[in-house]
């Protein structure tokens, strides 16, 4: 038992400060940033990190720290929106498939299988090619790629509990299917969904930065960490901080979110091992 507490503890001990730092950065950025993140200052291009600009400046003389702070807000918003859409749609479809079974279930499973057969990034790329590149289409494309995994997890959970006595009791008591689902099934589905949501958040963030890196991005000049990374490539040899700072931001955030997700899973579901 101590063992397990120790494990949860270590994950939380590192995860919570990292996520806290991210939230604090976003919070502070709402009220104050050292410089205007999109103000161009051509007298100081590619300035190295120092007292005036802690993380240096980019090729247009824009302050990297301020841009990273604004980037945190945009990257997190895009990831949150993606997770919200995927979780809502996925949970609804998963509940339907698991509760109704039969043809609804079979059809939904065939569709999720087909969507899962496309590599997530390529599917998102193709959808963005068709929809046009904007924040909205990135969210839509990524949530399309992630919804099937939510459907699968929710459906599996529903299948594991739908024959249990308390569900039977609710049905016998004359509750409508909707009531049974909302009152008795949904609460049991939530823990695995919460855990899945944290890993989805990490994937969404990673995919958004990968898409931006590939050139399909949230329209500039708004910085996301992925945009900043892809724009830093030509200056890698003369201004390595431009590549290192946003990369560390992504890695730190992902590490924090993943650890928090692990801690959450150990806490919600202590019988399953990492």
């Amino acid at each position: 038992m101590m063992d397990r507490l120790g494990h949860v503890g270590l994950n939380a001990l590192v995860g919570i400060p990292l996520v806290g730092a991210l939230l604090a950065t976003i919070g502070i950025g709402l009220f104050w940033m050292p410089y205007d993140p999109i103000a161009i200052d051509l007298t100081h291009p590619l300035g190295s990190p120092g007292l005036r600009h802690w993380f240096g400046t980019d090729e247009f003389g824009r302050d990297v720290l301020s841009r990273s702070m604004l980037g945190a807000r945009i990257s997190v918003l895009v990831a949150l929106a993606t997770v919200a859409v995927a979780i809502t749609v996925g949970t609804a479809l998963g509940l339907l498939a698991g509760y109704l079974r039969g043809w609804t279930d079979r059809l939904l499973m065939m569709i999720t299988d087909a969507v899962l057969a496309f590599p997530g990034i390529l599917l998102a790329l193709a959808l963005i090619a068709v929809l046009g590149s904007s924040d909205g289409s990135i969210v839509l494309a990524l949530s399309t790629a992630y919804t099937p995994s939510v459907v699968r997890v929710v459906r599996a959970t529903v299948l594991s509990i739908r024959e249990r006595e308390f569900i039977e009791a609710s049905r016998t008591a004359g509750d409508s299917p909707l009531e049974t689902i909302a009152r008795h099934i949904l609460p049991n589905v939530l823990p695995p969904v919460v855990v899945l949501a944290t890993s989805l958040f990490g994937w969404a963030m990673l995919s958004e930065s990968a898409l931006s890196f590939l050139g399909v991005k949230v329209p500039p000049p708004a910085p996301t960490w992925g945009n900043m990374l892809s724009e830093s490539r030509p200056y890698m040899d003369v201004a390595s901080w431009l590549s290192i700072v946003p990369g560390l931001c992504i890695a730190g955030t992902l590490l924090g979110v993943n650890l928090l997700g692990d801690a959450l899973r150990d806490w919600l579901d202590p019988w399953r091992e990492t």
Partner: protein
Amino acid sequence: MLSYILKRLLLTLPTLSLVSLAVFLLIRLIPGDPALVLLGEGADAAALAGVRADLGLDHPLPVQFVSWLQHALRGDLGRSIVSGEPVAGLILQRFGLTAAVVLVAVTAATVIAASAGLIAAWRRNSAIDLAVVGAATVVLAIPSFWLGMVLLLLFGLKLGWLPFVGYIPFSESAMQAMLFLVMPVMTLTITESGVLTRMMRSSSIDVLQLDYVTHARAKGLSERVVLTRHVFPNAFAPTLTLVGLTLGHLLGGIAVIETVFTLPGLGRLMVDSVLARDYPVVQGCLLFTAVVYVVVNLLVDLCYPLFDPRVTAR
């Protein structure tokens, strides 16, 4: 065994049909004349009429789909808007490089993950376990393209050990080609080993607690034999499934790595064609990767009984 294989084969049919339907409909999502979308803005009237006749655009959608599918099954995926070359040829030409990088990297990552995960589970909660889990967790949080850029910065620019931009085909110089591929393979191996290691560790922990392992130990078998003969085969099966799942997704993930290292692979072809709105190539790449994914996972599932004989009994 035979019925297991047949059942598994049949299961791929609905998936493949839906995949091809989705790829077919993708082009129809774009507003406007599909023939114009497929040939690009500058197309002349004769070519447009030719494509319209080919696709049977005056026929209802289901008929169009069947005719498109017949072409695709014969390996005719249309022509690129940008270069005019047949899409199938372009894909095959680029696939070799991508497949080589992915196969080498995934094999390396699997070997690393299988041994590290097994040892970490065996010495659970020791310093080794903590180090393995810690490393795997950190690796999971590092974007592959950023790792690639850092490696470029380090080995290519600062130390100058490895060539870092461009690529020389194997046909010209095998030695040179391999040097160019060291960093991409290294990047992919590192990023893929994270998730596989965690999987291997957790399934090894489960297996180590089973009675037959205790029994094997009680018989006086050495730890080495217990681990390699008794624990490994069962613990490896879930990891193998995960390898199959990642192998498919790597065909997408490698696009960013090919961009970092400017390799002319399949991922780059897909990205370039998306940016150039070269829809026939986008369609072809999507269909191709999805089919590869389905086939790879079919093969993995067919390998499953080799590791876990109980599978066929189900």
